[in-house]
């Protein structure tokens, strides 16, 4: 008989001793599991972006490529887009493009061709590190690590996503009940065991995009009640992050090119709230006045552009509505339609955007595109009948009354801007549309405040020849009638049509070239 069978029964173990042994056993088990995974080379925590979705400085954005020594690749797209492969540093001038989805959509190969044509020896290497959905907080973390790639020039095009990103941060904190819980799990994810569990869970659980529409809609509510006194705090964060990025790049010896961002003036504000101290009765007056005002706008000028009731909503186009990044099956279905949408007549643009329309092939469009563009065409043709002019004047009067009560109400400023535009008051319209975007409580595109920060930062570095700025917003506005940017150029709130992006990046090439020349001189 085995010894253990015949050994005398142990004395009763105290509970404290049992707990100690239990903890020890669990620890040994965890260590053995971790060691086994490490020995097998499985579930490497370095091969996963931080669970904070990039908001933590612990996020590892670059991993070495074991197949190609010296080469690194990004891990920031989670399968949405191909990761960027960065080869070992060579003699060419290395340019990093940093920013959001607009930057991600810039044609980096074209930029490199333009730069190479101007300075073929040693030539340029343009690496696009733009990431959709990112704002200044995560781009700053990404840039800090990207500087280890030893860029000569850092180009920053960033400013549409400040509230999108912070809304997402709130969403994450809400989902995890607190930022601390998320940080704790992020810390646990340094373990291979945790990563193995995540891999198992990801393989069996439906992804976040597969959630019901009702749950998805809840995610958009993060800033529904945001008031302007809190909005301004986010601009301070943007200013601090952008300034820090410039400092980081300069400390690393890289030249910096900043740019203002180009918004769509015909995209309505995302969030309009009243001051918290506005009495309930006054709010009721505002709702009544707005109802009367909007109801008077002829439908052909407001369908899809101005919300008059919960049913008659605003059309928010996405790049996929134009065919860009649309699922292949969806795109095939659109192309198989018998009736191709007829593109409406919008405004003619000046150089460098002059010529045929810049938008995609109408066969690729979703039904929402012609629906919204038809209204835009009615607006930009600005040919109201006499009766319509009277109605629009009534609307303007009532919206002005709303603004006397709440002078910075974003959506009212936007609606009055469109009405003034229809009535031929270009200056008034531009002023109101700019104000609408600037007072938006949680804007989803750049505005005068954001671009003002960029200009101010550029002015602070005016004596540094290696910090330059292109005022893309002003250059683009100069090419648009009445200085207003619309759907002739934009796919949605902040993304230019693919063809328009070539002319936009042409604006950056001369400055990138100068910064590249300066970097070569310093070598």
């Amino acid at each position, binding site marked *: 008989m085995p010894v253990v069978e015949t050994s005398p029964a142990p004395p009763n173990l105290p509970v404290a001793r049992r707990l100690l042994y239990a903890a020890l056993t669990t620890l040994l088990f965890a260590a053995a599991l971790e060691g086994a995974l490490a020995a097998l080379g499985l579930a490497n925590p370095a091969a996963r972006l931080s669970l904070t979705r990039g908001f933590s400085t612990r996020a590892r954005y670059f991993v070495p490529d074991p197949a190609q020594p010296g080469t690194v690749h990004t891990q920031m797209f989670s399968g949405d887009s191909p990761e960027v492969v960065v080869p070992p540093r060579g003699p060419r001038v290395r340019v990093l493009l940093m920013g959001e989805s607009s930057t991600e959509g810039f044609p980096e190969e074209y930029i490199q061709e333009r730069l190479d044509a101007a300075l073929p020896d040693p030539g340029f290497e343009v690496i696009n590190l733009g990431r959709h959905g990112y704002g200044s907080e995560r781009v700053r973390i990404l840039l800090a690590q990207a500087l280890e790639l030893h860029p000569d020039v850092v180009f920053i095009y960033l400013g549409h996503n400040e509230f999108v990103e912070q809304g997402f941060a709130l969403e994450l904190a809400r989902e995890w009940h607190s930022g601390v819980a998320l940080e704790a799990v992020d810390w*646990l994810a340094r373990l291979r065991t945790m990563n193995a569990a995540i891999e198992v869970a990801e393989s069996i659980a439906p992804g*976040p995009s597969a959630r019901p529409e009702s749950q998805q809609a809840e995610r958009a509510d993060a800033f529904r009640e945001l008031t302007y006194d809190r909005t301004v705090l986010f601009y301070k964060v943007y200013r601090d992050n952008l300034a820090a990025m410039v400092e980081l790049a300069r400390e690393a010896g890289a030249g910096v090119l900043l740019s203002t961002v180009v918004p769509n003036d015909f995209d309505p504000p995302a969030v309009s709230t009243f001051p918290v101290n506005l009495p309930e009765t006054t709010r009721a007056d505002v709702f009544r006045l707005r109802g009367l005002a909007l109801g008077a706008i002829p439908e052909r000028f407001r369908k899809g552009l101005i919300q008059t009731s919960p049913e008659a909503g605003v059309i928010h186009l996405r790049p996929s509505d134009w065919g860009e990044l649309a699922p292949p099956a969806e795109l095939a279905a659109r192309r198989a339609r018998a009736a191709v949408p007829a593109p409406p007549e919008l405004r003619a643009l000046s150089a460098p955007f002059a010529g045929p329309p810049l938008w995609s092939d109408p066969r690729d469009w979703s039904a929402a595109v012609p629906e919204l563009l038809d209204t835009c065409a009615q607006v930009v043709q600005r040919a109201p009948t006499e009766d319509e002019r009277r109605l629009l004047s009534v609307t303007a009067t009532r919206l002005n009354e709303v603004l006397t009560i709440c002078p910075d109400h974003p959506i009212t400023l936007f609606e009055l801007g469109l009405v003034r535009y229809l009535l031929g008051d270009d200056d008034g319209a531009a002023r109101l549309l700019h104000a609408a975007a600037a007072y938006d409580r949680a804007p989803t595109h750049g505005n005068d405040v954001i671009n003002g920060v960029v200009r101010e930062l550029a002015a602070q570095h005016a004596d540094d020849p290696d910090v330059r700025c292109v005022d893309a917003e002003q250059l683009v506005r100069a090419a648009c009638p009445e200085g207003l940017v619309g759907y002739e150029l934009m796919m949605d709130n902040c993304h230019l049509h693919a063809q328009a992006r070539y002319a936009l990046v042409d604006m950056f090439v001369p400055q990138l070239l100068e910064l590249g020349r300066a970097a070569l001189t310093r070598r």
Partner: protein
Amino acid sequence: MRTYLQFLRRHPVWWVTPIVLYLGALLWLASLVARTPDNPFAYTLY
């Protein structure tokens, strides 16, 4: 050591339970991570 080995043999519930809880907690947290979105909803909305 002998006492510890006897503990393992005589009281399996005392050490199997925390291991199961540990694995359960890992899988539960992992399932929460798998459900966490990668991108802001606002991006897909606008």
